[in-house]
């Protein structure tokens, strides 16, 4: 598999994230017998939003705390602080010194981790239901009780530098991807890598972390998601007991972001590397997200990505890989779950005697076809059906469900938006897809990245 293609694939699969969101509406569709499995959400007095997703099939519960802050909220010059703080959150509190929380989770056979994205930071544990209370005790303590010393901060900075080495510096496709993002986003935080630029990570310190922590980590800036073998009323009582007493941060302001200016130029980014033997390209556009789009537009972009390049039934795959036989891979993705304007992308790699230029030209032609001639009703129905069945399959994965609710709710969607999503997908018409392609996938505003072997010019 081509390096860039692999990266694009990953993006593509996560891009469908929102597509997998499910809710009570669907539960009714799928299986009316499921009383008691409705998603329940409520707010504590201190502003903490709580979402409970019951799934009683196995004695496992997923406890996730989502903070509505991500790398795109960082101050200039402090890139990487959101992610660095996420690492430092494992360094202990006054009540529970370093290592105690992790040791306790390991002791009960639980799983834990944390992750940072542009718009959110999340911490989770998966344990047997009888340990949920203890997880809440630890996690609520950590929400405002973190204690940091230079002694633990300094080695952790080295760990993050090694993480950047693993994820970016040693991977040609990541180096290109980072640069492509920095070119696509001209004014918003999405142009800065989540992990941070190396020269800025190196300077992050304890004070930076504490400042960021005190500013953003508060119950009125967080969402608690509990999925699995639990009862919503029990979760409410536990949440009240452990998270309830934590005071809200009165100084927490509106979440503001710098916005993208009108984009009028086509741009290209090229990376030549001796590790590359099969070239690849990725073409991206700035498009609205579920949060910024007009009604129905994000749903149209989701379906457009599916019809254009969502898998083996898509136009790009059928035309470039199967019929013309010029590509080893070709696809499209839309990252709709995003607080600000986001990316739509198309990617491909050649095979046999075909060149990268052939692949790019053929993919461009498929986009123009949709923008000018639209799609068939059959294509639309098939794509909708794939989305709707993916919602049923998604319910099989408890932590996946928790992730979907958490990421949607931290990027401006509501539980109701999630519940109504299948109906909004059903409402999309063929002309909406055509209009979305014509409006957004304009070659004269695209940003294209080329991953090439040494000494080769982009076509």
């Amino acid at each position, binding site marked *: 598999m081509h390096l860039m293609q692999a990266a694009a694939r990953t993006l593509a699969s996560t891009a469908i994230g929102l597509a997998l969101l499910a809710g009570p509406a669907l539960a009714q569709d799928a*299986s009316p017998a499921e009383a008691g499995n409705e998603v329940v959400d409520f707010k504590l007095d201190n502003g903490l939003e709580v979402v409970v997703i019951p799934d009683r099939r196995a004695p496992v519960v997923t406890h996730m705390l989502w903070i509505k802050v991500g790398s795109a909220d960082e101050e200039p010059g402090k890139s990487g602080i959101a992610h660095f703080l996420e690492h430092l959150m494992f360094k202990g509190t006054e009540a529970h010194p370093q290592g105690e929380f992790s040791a306790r989770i390991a002791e009960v056979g*639980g*799983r834990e981790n944390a*992750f940072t994205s542009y718009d959110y930071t999340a911490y989770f544990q*998966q344990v047997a239901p009888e340990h949920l209370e203890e997880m809440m005790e630890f996690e609520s303590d950590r929400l405002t009780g973190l204690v940091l010393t230079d002694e633990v901060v300094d080695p952790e900075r080295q760990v993050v*530098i090694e993480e950047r*080495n693993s994820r970016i510096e040693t991977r040609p496709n990541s180096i290109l991807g980072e640069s492509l993002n920095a070119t696509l986003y001209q004014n918003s935080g999405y142009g800065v890598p989540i992990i941070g630029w190396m020269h800025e990570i190196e300077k992050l310190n304890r004070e930076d972390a504490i400042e960021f922590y005190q500013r953003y980590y508060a119950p009125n800036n967080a969402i608690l998601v509990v999925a699995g073998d639990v009862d919503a009323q029990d979760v409410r009582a536990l949440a009240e007991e452990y998270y309830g007493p934590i005071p809200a941060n009165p100084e927490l302001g509106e979440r503001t972001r710098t916005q993208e200016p009108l984009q009028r130029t086509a741009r290209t980014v090229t990376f030549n590397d001796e590790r590359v033997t099969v070239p690849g390209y990725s073409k991206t556009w700035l498009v609205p997200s579920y949060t910024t789009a007009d009604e129905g537009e994000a749903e149209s972009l989701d379906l457009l990505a599916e019809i254009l390049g969502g898998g083996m039934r898509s136009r790009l795959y059928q035309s470039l*890989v199967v019929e013309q036989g010029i590509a080893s891979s070709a696809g499209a993705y839309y990252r709709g779950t995003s607080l600000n304007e986001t990316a739509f992308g198309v990617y491909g790699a050649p095979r046999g005697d075909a060149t990268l230029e052939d692949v790019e030209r053929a993919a461009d032609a498929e986009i123009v076809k949709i923008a000018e001639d639209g799609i068939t009703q059959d294509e639309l129905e098939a794509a909708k059906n794939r989305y709707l069945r993916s919602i049923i399959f998604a319910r099989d994965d408890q932590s996946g469900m928790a992730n979907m609710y958490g990421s949607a709710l931290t990027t401006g969607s509501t539980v109701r938006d999630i519940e109504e999503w299948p109906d909004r997908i059903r409402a999309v018409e063929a002309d909406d897809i055509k209009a979305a392609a014509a409006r957004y996938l304009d070659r004269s505003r695209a940003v294209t990245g080329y991953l090439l072997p040494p000494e080769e010019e982009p076509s």
Partner: protein
Amino acid sequence: MSIELKRIEEQSMSASGTGFWKIIGAAALVLTLAAPARAAVEIQEVTTDSGITAWLVEDYTIPMIAINFSFNGGSNQDPAGKGGLVNLMSGLFDEGAGDLEANEFQEALDNAGAEMSFNATSDALYGSMRLLSDNKDEALDLLALAVNEPRFDADPVERIRQQVLTGIRANSRDPQRQGNQQFARALYGDHPYARENDGTEEDVTALTVDDLRGAHERLLAKSNLHVAVVGAIDAETLKADLDRMFDALPQDAELTEIARIEPKLGEEVSYEFQLPQSTVQLIYPGMERDDPEFFAAYLMNHILGGGTFSSRLFNEVREIRGLTYGIGSWLANRDFSTSLAISTSTRSDQVGQALEVIETEVTKLADEGPTADELEKAKTYVIGAYAINNLDSSASIARTLLELQRDDLGIDYIDTRVGQIEAVTLDQVKAAAQRLLIADPSVLVIGPQASETETSN
């Protein structure tokens, strides 16, 4: 959503895709200390009149069914000069079957609301389907066609072949892939485990449709089939469906015998490449799955470098010294070989220091064994983590039940493993550490001037 940065990367598991499940399979079962009698899964054994057996977990919560099956004998069955045959075949089951050509087949599958996938590891050919129970018959008819009557039409064969070749070429200058391949050759010599499942450019180019048909006839049979099913289906219905899918297969597979092999120890492989960060892997002897000391070794490995934020290696190499982002160790149990592997990556000028810390920890565990407290905690983790890691969705339950059958662990394994783990003594774990960790490991370093940094071995 989007690119997420996880604090810990999943440990990558050896060259073989089965490695992962072998390890998990080895880890065990459910039940935490506090929640005793609640069985997470109730497994039924279903056998048809024609002798096809499946393990079934009935669950009607979601209107879907997950089916996972395997045929023992994967890429290790590629004949000489035909490397990549089984891998290529695995890409062609959904490219036309019976009367349906590739496009018609995929359209029918899409209309049936089902998803099908096949893949080959060195030890087995795996297939799976997840389907909506309302469309069960349409979906299973297509699965039956794919398993029994793949067409291997010229067009799709050529297309998938070109995709495989593109993949091989794309890896040809990737230092990680090349370094790992060189290491596999050093460990396994001319054994099939030294080969890449994808095959070589030369071999894959020469594969023919007759080769594919031959492999299909030899390798897909009732004798080497295992099946696991989870979801909205009862035992009687499943019986008929098992026959529908598999009864037409020949009784016996024609498998080439594969020799058992232990990885060669004391080998040093340096793959030199200018990188800011080097990757390091150490290979020690492993423990057979049916060895009475298996769980002692499993617990010992967990203490050394198992998948938590509390292992000795995690603590010493990452937490205290900040030398790496990811470090871990695992028991890799393949059908014909076992090993204990340790892997990490670190800034290239720190490789010597990282190796030194690792070897200090290995030696310490071999010499002194773990503490009683460490062992107790390891036991509770390994017992409790089974449900979370292996039984948290229909798809993962089906994968787990399949591996339990492949490992011949018995349908009551999930119940018996708790007792087996609890019975392990501190002396047994010490003995296991002695048995595995005294050895002079084989070491792979991928990075700049690897030969110079690798001094501590």
